[in-house]
């Protein structure tokens, strides 16, 4: 089949961008969305033209490198699916697809569909860890963690840091990303000790990086490829208030 594309092309952060039309011929239903883009790029490269820049790596939905807006939706139409796992059988011959980069103040554009997400690293640097050095850890079974708690922590820990939550949010808030890490570590005894300082520092880092506030729209949860729940944001807010009222 054949699909028509409107792709955001922008040579650099300061250049003017625009939507450019392309046609992907010979699209097979089993191709992934990114393989379809690869095929467009192959044609461009063979003609000596600059290919469309987009990020991707593992192509199995776990590294969090890929991510574009497909027809206005982060990662495209399928629920709980990264764009690398979206397949062309979802589309019909002759369809037109609009492809744009994540748009957020804290994710400055680098080129075409590639943005800089290092603000996420800055949030983790502010406190997304437990303060333990290598060596001297107690035996793994010395800390008992009930299965239900471990499972809940894992539900939060599956975040892949792709940035879809920010891209989908009208405030470009990083609340879902930040709260997932805060919840994971606050639930576990290993992370509990630093929970009050962590939540304050991470929320501050989120604001400093230029992410907006959360107004509980739930767009983030709707596009999250890992199905991370909005409840974590409530946990973050509760942890934050508790930290502010305590002596930290």
């Amino acid at each position, binding site marked *: 089949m054949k699909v028509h594309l409107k792709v955001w092309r922008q040579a650099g952060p300061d250049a003017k961008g625009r939507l450019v039309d392309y046609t992907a011929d010979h699209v097979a239903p089993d191709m992934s969305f990114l393989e379809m883009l690869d095929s467009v790029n192959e044609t*461009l490269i063979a003609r000596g033209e600059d*290919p469309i820049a987009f990020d991707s*790596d593992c*192509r199995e939905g776990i590294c969090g490198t890929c991510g574009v807006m497909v027809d206005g939706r982060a990662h495209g139409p399928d629920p709980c699916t990264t764009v690398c796992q979206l397949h062309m059988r979802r589309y019909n011959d002759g369809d037109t697809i609009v492809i744009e980069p994540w748009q957020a103040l804290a994710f400055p554009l680098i080129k075409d569909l590639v943005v800089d997400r290092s603000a996420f690293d800055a949030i983790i640097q502010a406190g*997304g860890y437990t303060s333990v050095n290598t060596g001297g850890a*107690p035996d*793994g079974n010395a800390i008992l963690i*009930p299965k239900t708690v*471990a499972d809940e922590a894992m539900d939060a820990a599956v975040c892949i840091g792709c940035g879809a939550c920010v891209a989908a949010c009208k405030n470009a808030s990083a609340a879902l990303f930040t709260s997932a890490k805060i919840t994971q570590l606050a639930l576990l005894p*290993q992370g509990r000790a630093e929970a009050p300082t962590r939540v304050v520092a991470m929320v501050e880092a989120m604001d400093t990086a230029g992410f907006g506030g959360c107004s509980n729209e739930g767009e983030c949860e709707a596009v999250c490829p890992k199905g991370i729940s909005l409840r974590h944001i409530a946990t973050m807010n509760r942890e934050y208030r508790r930290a502010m009222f305590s002596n930290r």
Partner: protein
Amino acid sequence: MTLDPNIPSGPLADKWDRHRFDSKLVNPANRRKHTVIIVGTGLAGASAAASLGELGYNVLSFCIHDSARRAHSIAAQGGINAAKNYQNDGDSIWRLFYDTIKGGDYRSREANVYRLAQTSVNIIDQCVAQGVPFAREYGGQLDNRSFGGAQVSRTFYARGQTGQQLLLGAYQSMMRQVAKGSVTMFTQREMLDVVIIDGKARGIICRNLVTGELERYVADAVCLATGGYGTAYYLSTNAVNSNVTAAWRAHKRGAYFANPCFTQIHPTCIPVTGSDQSKLTLMSESLRNDGRVWVPRQQHDTRHPNDIPETERDYYLERKYPSFGNLVPRDVASRNAKAACDDGRGVGESGLAVYLDFKNAIDRLGHATVAGRYGNLFDMYRKITDEDPYKEPMRMYPAIHYTMGGLWVDYNLMSTVPGLHVLGEANFSDHGANRLGASALMQGLADGYFVIPCTLAHYIASTPVEKVTTDHDAFKEAEHAVQSRITSLLSVKGSKTPRELHRELGRLLWDEVGMSRTDAGLRRALARIPQLRDEFWQNVSVPGDPNNLNKNLEYAGRVADYLEFGELLALDALHRTESCGGHFREESQTPDGEARRDDEHFAYVAGWEFRGVGTPHELHKEQLIFENVKPSQRSYK
């Protein structure tokens, strides 16, 4: 030259302790004055950066991704082994050591493997302390499962995302050091050369992938943790940006490459569909615990699998290996799948697939139990193939997954270039000719958390280095070499894309240096690769600007390196006329078609020295000495 592995003396179980005591230390107050470069932020690189940063060294960490958290370790599904014996099922450090040596078909070093088994227990403790949410029992203890045919349950896991959770643990520890200022993170940097001064590794040349600028970094020592070379085959389970470039450029500067022909082919991957496929997706080996592998008895049978009656199916693994059945090791399962397809009994559109059938398991255990065990894998399969594994068998075919070969290192993880250390999959050291399931994560973290902090301190404390800056002539020469290679790539202006040439190389390597290798086939590959390389340099198309983000330029540089590396891969496979582990030479098999090792002639590590592109490499041998286990022929009948 004989390669000296520098294995400490004394009984096996005491070597590591003794070595740590004999190693020199760096005064805590002086560590800040020593700069260490670490390239790569997967499990090995991130754990090394975090640990060395905690100790107080000035660490410079580099990765090609936009964040350290993206490294391909993140994709590991199954789990991580540790000799904890929490299940009281007879596990021990000795048993993990023995299983790893035997699984590697007696082509790894006893001392390294024993140290790996010893440190495995500390890894779990460390990761738990970091808040890695491992699977738990209802009572709160860590859960274990049996993996990859092991007879004990020693695998720790976090759902089907163990690699992700372990990597995020290491990444977070590293981010903590970044905040403290002991680790400086350089993302979107590709290492394109190692700088050697006075015979020692003293720095690297990087390309800033966003601005295109070449950058110089100087240090007292360099660590490479840049992963394996599976992507040389084009289609593999590796991420599309994984590459051999850093290792290969180090090799060209004098680091020997060891056992490149030891590649692991994973038996259960989703088969190839169409020519535009960019990568293959692995389905966890745990599926073989309940799934039954079969092909039709008759050739070219085009019936739907559900229409083929029991009597016309060949459950070939159960038939040939009655005691291990569907749970034979990866190499055996892969070769048998290929044999069935070569016999014209493969299934699916391409005929390059076998069935993995859960019908019996669903009948026996019920839909809910099977969904509980494999639900996420079934969903993943359905997403990719649009077929429902609850209703019809999965189609599977082997794919390149892991590379046991890599840069040669001694017991201290130092390559043949003083000061250049190699960690994780990038080195060759611990898995011999075949890696066991759930052991890659263990090795990456052992190297980074526990081995390198000790051995690198010893190197720094015992090796005086002259004070140099990045203005040194060696930096200028290296940067110039990198620059001219980039200029050459841009100036060809041909009409073939790097991907077309990579795909062609990949197909050649898969056909001739894949699951089954012959003298004639390897010679064909050795004749063809230089032609492909010439074609690349005469006809590749690399449009665009070198001074900004240009992913096709990055990729072209990597493909150019695969086209050099592929030749060494085939050469090593040609010289090793025995079969062992993942390396199967058709000339060396038992009468019933199993791999036949040749300990008399090949019980050594092949370390290859670079002599120039197109010039044959020189072989150096490290003899493998088995003092504690007796090599025996593996049998899974």
